[in-house]
């Protein structure tokens, strides 16, 4: 029974990893570039919600709305005025710039919030649980987190494959040189894609704040989990990202069940194993 429990908790944890990964997957899918500061932006989202709700005492709903609006707007502006300038055939400049952003963000957070580990208390949500059987119960918080992940992935899938915006995003991903001949402004399309991704980063940051302890240096590890989830699931497959997150989560909780010290290592080992067996990921690119 402990094993079933470990797997179940892993699936729910996978929801968090899928949230980490979703924004990264979207940006890579449309613009073919990897945002090294992705994990740090998630941590920024976590500090924002902490500031709004705890320091300023805002209503949590207003706090969440503010975080999402701020993140999306910052993502749009960052893409439009910084990242678009370095996008091109050479993949190195955007990596270097986002690496620099990562350092700036980490040190900025350290300056503002100190190195203390923080967490957003969620009151009764933390202790409530849903009893599935006599012996297995899931916490309300992880359960809601998983539902959020499924909802976010489903919404992204809908936008990508059912809306005019998604059509333009896919076209841009296919052949950015030709898109202007269809009236599309690449700079603006990229900025919209990053705004959407940053919205998801905000959601991930809020769940990070509620679920675990975080500190200004927590970003790179989130980036790593996000990478692993995207690669396991298959680049360019949105549901694959959810699957990748779940596999990573299950590997970690089962590893922790064997020995608490194996949690992180087990996740990385499963990732490496899948990289050897299925280097292109579990699900194929592009599913309608």
């Amino acid at each position, binding site marked *: 029974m402990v094993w079933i429990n470990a797997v179940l908790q892993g699936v729910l944890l996978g929801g968090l990893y899928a949230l980490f990964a979703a924004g990264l997957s979207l940006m890579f899918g449309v613009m073919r570039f990897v945002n090294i500061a992705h994990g740090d932006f998630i941590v920024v989202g976590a500090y924002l919600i902490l500031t709004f709700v705890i320091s300023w005492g805002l209503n949590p709903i207003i706090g969440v709305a503010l975080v999402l609006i701020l993140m999306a707007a910052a993502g749009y502006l960052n893409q439009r005025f910084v990242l678009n300038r370095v996008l091109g055939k050479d993949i190195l400049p955007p990596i270097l710039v986002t690496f620099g952003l990562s350092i700036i963000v980490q040190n900025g957070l350290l300056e503002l919030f100190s190195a203390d580990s923080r967490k957003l208390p969620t009151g009764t949500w933390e202790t409530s649980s849903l009893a599935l059987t006599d012996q297995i119960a899931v916490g309300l918080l992880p359960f809601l987190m998983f539902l959020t992940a499924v909802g976010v992935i489903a919404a992204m899938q809908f936008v990508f494959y059912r809306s005019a915006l998604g*059509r333009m995003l*896919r*076209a841009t991903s296919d052949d950015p040189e030709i898109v*202007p*001949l*269809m009236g599309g402004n690449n700079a603006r399309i990229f900025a919209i894609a990053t705004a959407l991704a940053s919205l998801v980063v905000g959601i991930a940051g809020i769940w990070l704040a509620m679920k675990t302890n975080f500190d200004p240096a927590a970003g790179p590890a989130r980036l790593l989990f996000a990478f692993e989830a995207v690669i396991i699931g298959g680049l360019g497959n949105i549901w694959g990202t959810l699957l990748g997150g779940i596999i990573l989560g299950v590997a970690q909780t089962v590893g922790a069940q064997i020995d608490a010290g194996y949690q992180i290592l087990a996740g990385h080992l499963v990732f490496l194993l899948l990289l050897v067996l299925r280097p292109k990921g579990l699900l194929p690119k592009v599913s309608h």
Partner: protein
Amino acid sequence: MTRLLETQGLTAHYGDFQALFGIDMTIDAGETVAIIGSNGAGKSTFLRALTGLRPTAGQSVQFDGQSIAGLPAYRIHKLGLAMVPEGRRLFPSLTVEENLLIGAAGGRKGPWSLKSIYDLFPDLVAKKHNPGTALSGGQQQMVAIGRALMSNPKLVLCDEISLGLAPKIIKDIYQAVPQIRANGTSVLVVEQDVGQALAVATRVYCFMEGRVSLTGTPASLTRSQIAQAYFGLTEEAH
């Protein structure tokens, strides 16, 4: 007739290499103009300059009464200048219908819609939910033309639309040109197939090494004139 497009002394460079040496061209509304010329004559470069894919800032390019030199490609597109790019360049992850709808993203009003494109190319109806790249070459070309028309352009540029297609398919595709013109869209085709170009065009420009080597109506040009303008050789008299 109103002047739709006019370039004066248009030049283009790829680094140190100069591809166009002062192209003067005019297209009036309702015309079908063909550009012929051998590989490397600058035909495609000229189209890319018109659409904004090649920089033209500071030069003289008038379209529909305003200067479009130096405008970004997406702005030029919204003024009513669409292109069927060489090699079709359909979006592989989009279906046929989605490829067509992308063409309408600029939001220009006019006679072209999904329905009128399907009327023009009935072959596409059964394939509309297939990925654009799963079609035959001729059908892909129809999608590429339809995608350009969906923006309801005043002028559509067709770059080598017969390249790599069977003669019968080429004939089918060129049958659409009169219907395109009937809907008020002028056409500029780039062709290596001289016979096809002369058959479809009201006026022909021949390019050689980045310059206009000959221009006139198909009826006014002789074979030897064209051969000389095309290859830069004087045709042997026997």
